[in-house]
């Protein structure tokens, strides 16, 4: 999980931050290697934005420490600020300026020019160049995010902090956006991104699951299924609501949740094998008038792991 840090990535140790009596971050520690595409996944209020703001040197932590590119976020803030690119949660460009005006402005802010930033900006610029003269406010959601990414890259940063860059953007634009991120990463950029979408998290090298100001786990998405300590079974049938209730009433039921067109079931008894659980369910469901239920053992994904690790959200009703 954590190798030795080479000082060019991000090192967070025991970070804590509270606003009044609300704890935003609670003893958060994580290491991001240089050149990694690292994802933070979790619901609103989990603390992702606070963490990103501290890393961007916009906030001071109450406890703990953080280093970005080998520099301390509290002491070396000016050195960090010229070397990172930051995209905060909301769309934060100038809606009444054109695409090109926005880019040139941000280039000037960093004391550089649009042309000088070409190496990183070029692939994205190709996609938004046809709209160079259009007011940024008149762009579609996906285009806006690409423009924002451009503006964050124009000064050739060494590290990117993207706080929910694809919220509210349609699925296709989101894919294109993450294609761009992967391309940037191949060029050597270190990227930290937070997202509520599990499918995006799956494209990261490693993912941190965040909830309630804490990091529940950090793992490689491709191997995160190993976290699961018991088999996961997917059940499909036509009458979903009835199936849901039926499965919940099964005496051995552990967790029962809808997942897309299937229902993911884990048994409360940890020692059963996948096949045994599946066979049991087949019999049980046949008795409950689900003759054609499809049952298969599946590999747990990020969301399954997340939900298994989650503490019950405050006041959740069953």
């Amino acid at each position, binding site marked *: 999980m954590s190798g030795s840090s080479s000082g*060019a990535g991000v090192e967070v140790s025991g970070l804590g931050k509270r606003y009044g009596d609300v704890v935003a971050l609670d003893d958060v520690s994580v290491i991001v290697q*240089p*050149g990694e595409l690292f994802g933070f996944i979790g619901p609103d209020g989990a603390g992702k934005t606070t963490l990103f*703001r501290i890393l*961007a*040197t*916009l*906030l*001071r932590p109450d406890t703990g420490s953080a280093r970005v590119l080998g520099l301390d976020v509290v002491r070396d*803030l*000016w050195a960090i*600020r*010229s070397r*990172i690119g*930051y*995209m*905060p*949660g*909301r*769309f*934060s*460009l*100038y*809606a*009444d*300026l054109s695409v090109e*005006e926005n880019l*040139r*402005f*941000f280039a*000037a*802010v*960093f*004391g*550089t*020019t649009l042309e*000088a*930033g070409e190496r990183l900006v070029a692939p994205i610029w190709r996609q938004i160049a046809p709209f160079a003269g259009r007011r940024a406010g008149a762009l579609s959601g996906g285009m806006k995010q690409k423009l924002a990414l451009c*503006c*964050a890259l124009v*000064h*050739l940063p*060494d590290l990117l902090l993207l706080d929910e860059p694809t919220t509210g953007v349609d699925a296709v634009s989101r894919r294109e956006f993450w294609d761009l991120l992967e391309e940037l990463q191949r*060029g*050597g950029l270190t990227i930290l991104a937070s997202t509520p979408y599990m499918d995006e998290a799956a494209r990261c090298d490693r993912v941190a699951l965040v909830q309630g100001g804490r990091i529940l786990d950090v793992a490689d998405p491709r191997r995160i299924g190993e976290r699961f300590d018991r088999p996961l079974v997917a059940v499909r049938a036509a009458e979903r609501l009835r199936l849901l209730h039926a499965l919940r009433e099964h005496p051995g039921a552990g967790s029962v949740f809808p997942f897309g067109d299937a229902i993911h079931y884990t048994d409360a008894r940890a020692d059963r094998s996948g096949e045994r659980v599946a066979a049991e369910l087949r019999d049980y469901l046949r008795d409950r008038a689900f003759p054609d239920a499809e049952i298969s053992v599946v590999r747990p994904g990020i969301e399954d792991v997340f939900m298994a690790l989650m503490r019950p959200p405050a006041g959740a009703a069953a």
Partner: protein
Amino acid sequence: MSARATPPRRGAQRTLGAFVRKELHHILRDRQTLVILLLMPLVQVLLFGYALRTDIHDLRVAIVDPSPDARSVRLRDRLEGTPRFRVVRTATTALALEDLFRRGEADVAVVLPARFGESLGRGEPTEVLLVADASDPNTGTIMQAYVRAALAGFEADVTPQAGGPVRIRVESRMRFNPTLESANLFVPGLIALVLTLVSALMTAISLSREKERGTLEVLLVSPLRPWQIIAGKVLPYLGLGFAITCLVLLAARLAFRVPLRGSALLLLAESVLFTIVSLSLGVLVAARTESQRAAMLGALVGTLMPTALLSGMIFPIASMPGWLQPVTFIVPARWFVVIARGIMLKGTGLAYLWRETLVLTGMAAILLVAATRSFHARLD
């Protein structure tokens, strides 16, 4: 990891230039606001053609009595005894008057002719000259009225003793504003209002809009120091305020022939000083508020309203209740209005206006420092 050339740093001017360009884009593309900013002062100049009636409590009277005698002294006593009057100077020649008026130390002068008492005693019609400082045309007429009333009372007293009808003919002259144009009164105040509007209100809104939209966050995570961000945002408004001031002066001159008797350069310089004060106030308001709406409200209540109500541009400070008058000392526009009126209507220069200029300079220095320190490099 990979070798990456650092992009060449171009320097602060380029960044500042970029900021100014950006702000100009914002200003010019916000058509509605632009129209209001340009049209409103012009409309106000044209609308405020009428005088506002006000009342006087404390009239400073200067008396010129070339040959004091029993009767003239009785007149002087009467004037002094009138509750609304305060005799500030008694002289034997009229030479001192000019200076008194210029310095704003007297509101009205009563000039008695030589051998006033003698001619009264002989029953001859006697002429008394009233000279009033009418750079504020509201008060000019009223002051005249009061003094005339007092003189009429004196006339009534004196008549039986003299044994014949005594007449006091009053000739009045209005200094500095012979035709009592209220536009003359109003325009200096209007400049203050316009500058406050552009510098304080627009700056506050512009800065808080960056906050609200989230663009400020992105600007902070850059090599820019907070003071550079503020300077970049504020400079275009400095220029805009300047332009509008010239526009107002031009319009006032063309429509009402409002004079500019003093140095135009001095007026513009003082305007710049006043603008800096307003800009700093705008920045302070933006630093304390979280939304554009709150910033607008804060700027309106904190800068625009005091300028309109307490600067003396509409309501003379002299007629405000006693407890309110000291309050006006902290309203920057109050000082500027005196300066502007002095330069435009009286043709005075720094020699007479150095006190007010000093106050404004002090305010500018303090507020500028406070404003730059109010914008932090971090969000908390």
